[in-house]
């Protein structure tokens, strides 16, 4: 008995196929070839592929990034993002970066922060780079991790709670340095420079940092005031076309800045709201409350009426589309409770959202006009951020 049990284990260790051969000797081998278990990989990506970050707060040590085909809203795979992991993709979309924390005893013990690097096709872990144990254990807002346009440096938001940035050299697979950024948050990459990024500061200015070729800070310059944080705070999420960045104010303003130079240049601003909207108290809200498709000059905003102090994360009653040239609203459709918006980078872009009531993903068509077309529920527990392929 003991011996045969032992042998059973040994057989099984050869895998299902071997076990199948053996078992079938005594069953019906005729006409049946035992199936093999294989490992899948992702199908070729389309522009509608979504990477959806989920903080899984009820099991906050075990967060996830769900990969979903936006054309069908079919689940394609998952990358574990650990304890308040912050995730993004390389500019060429071949790699997924996750800055996260691992504790030696799950919820306690020694803290190790890493930048985990996954192949975005096989979803295999390629590398792990140890970083200082300071990565921001924060909700995965857009901009808390970013990559230089040439793919060389990954920059991660830190919080202890003092704010700083960690610079990691992806090519050399090593951590480079920490840049203190007191009172500032988020990383907005310049597009015409491969060594420059900007962070949003609590006094309403923008701080632009330029790296040298080794990833060390070579220059830091603070802009004029972009916003009044007391009277007219902005969301940290931004959208951009090249170096032209758009910011969204709590009370419905679109602000802008050019982040290409060593010092950010504040651009003009305008309001999404007309008199009637204002009277009805419409305001933007959510965790990723707007999306911009520069080629078509369309801006999409998640909005709710009767906005009050504290409603800035409220789910959307409507999604509004604007033409950023004419600065006019061109469509308004049901919001489906979305708290996030992202638009695919393609000629006929699709707009995606997240309904937190159902952990649902939402798909809108934008051509010829904005229109809600599909919902699929049950993508994890607390998805709040969409990154498009």
């Amino acid at each position, binding site marked *: 008995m003991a*011996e*045969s049990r032992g*042998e*059973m*284990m040994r057989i*099984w*260790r050869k*895998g*299902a196929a071997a*076990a*199948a051969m*053996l*078992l*079938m*000797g*005594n*069953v*019906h*081998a*005729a006409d*049946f070839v*035992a*199936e*093999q*278990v*294989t*490992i*899948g*990989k*992702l199908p070729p990506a389309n522009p509608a592929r979504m990477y959806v970050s989920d903080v899984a707060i009820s099991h906050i040590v*075990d967060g*996830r990034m769900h*990969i979903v085909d936006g*054309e*069908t*809203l*079919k*689940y*394609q*795979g*998952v*990358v*574990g993002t650990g304890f308040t992991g912050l995730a993004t993709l390389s500019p060429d979309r071949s790699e997924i970066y996750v800055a996260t924390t691992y504790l030696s005893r799950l919820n306690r013990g020694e803290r190790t922060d890493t930048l985990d690097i996954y192949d975005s*096709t*096989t*979803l*295999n872990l390629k590398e792990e780079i140890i970083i200082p144990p300071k990565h921001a254990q924060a909700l995965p807002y857009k901009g808390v991790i970013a990559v230089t346009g040439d793919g060389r440096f990954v920059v991660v938001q830190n919080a202890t709670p003092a704010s700083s940035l960690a610079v990691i050299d992806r090519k050399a697979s090593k951590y480079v340095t920490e840049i203190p950024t007191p009172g500032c948050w988020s990383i907005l990459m310049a597009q015409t420079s491969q060594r420059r990024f900007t962070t949003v500061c609590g006094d309403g200015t923008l701080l632009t940092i330029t790296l040298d070729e080794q990833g060390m800070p070579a220059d830091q310059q603070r802009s004029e005031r972009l916003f009044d944080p007391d009277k007219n705070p902005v969301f940290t999420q931004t959208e951009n076309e090249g170096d032209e960045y758009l910011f969204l104010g709590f009370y419905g303003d679109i602000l802008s800045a050019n982040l290409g130079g060593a010092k950010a240049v504040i651009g003009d601003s305008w309001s999404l709201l007309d008199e009637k909207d204002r009277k009805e108290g419409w305001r933007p809200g959510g965790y990723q409350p707007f999306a911009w498709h520069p080629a078509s000059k369309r801006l999409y905003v998640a909005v709710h009426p009767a906005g009050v102090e504290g409603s800035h994360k409220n789910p959307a009653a409507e999604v509004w589309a604007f033409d950023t040239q004419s600065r006019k609203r061109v469509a308004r459709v049901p919001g489906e409770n979305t708290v996030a918006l992202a638009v695919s980078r393609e000629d006929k872009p699709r707009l995606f959202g997240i309904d937190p009531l*159902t*952990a*649902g993903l939402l*798909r809108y068509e934008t051509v010829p006009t904005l229109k809600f*077309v*599909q*919902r*699929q*529920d*049950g*993508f*994890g*527990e607390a998805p709040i951020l969409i990154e498009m392929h």
Partner: protein
Amino acid sequence: MRWFDDFIERKTREVAQLTSRRSAMLKVGRLLVGAGMLLPILPFDRQPQAAPGGHGGEAATAGHGGHGGGGLGDPNDDTTCEYWRYCALDGFLCTCCGGSISECPGGTEVSKVTWIGTCQNPNDGKAYLISYNDCCGITACGRCMCNYNIGERPAYRMGVHNDVNWCMGNKANSYHCTVAVALGIAEAREPTA
């Protein structure tokens, strides 16, 4: 190697005896569906959700089951708990996690050891030996939790036990989801009870 053949013979007999009829499976299955045992989120309804865009077929995910589906799951739809091969499966369906009936999702590895069920294929009436391999090494899938126990026995009959993590034999030993591959055709007999 005589003792070895004996073992295989005994084992084969054992699983054959555990063979169950589709009808029994359905009866039990529905009840367990309602029960939602081991569900991360309760209660839920495992009806397949018809995706509005015509791209349906993905089962309701654990905890977020839609209520728009109708009737029993299709025994030929491998994204529903009612798929015929799942008669002794307790876990997340890899078909809802980016894999397929025989393919572990990207980033995982296949469990080296498995548990075995014997399920009847309603299409040919034959009973098949099914190997339930867990896919291992990444965070739990959490989607399409199923819990069928036909032929399942307590851990003193480990090879037909489904309440352990079958990734335990792997170095990467966290549990992600479960595939169900057919190993061979078994004789269909009435279950013991």
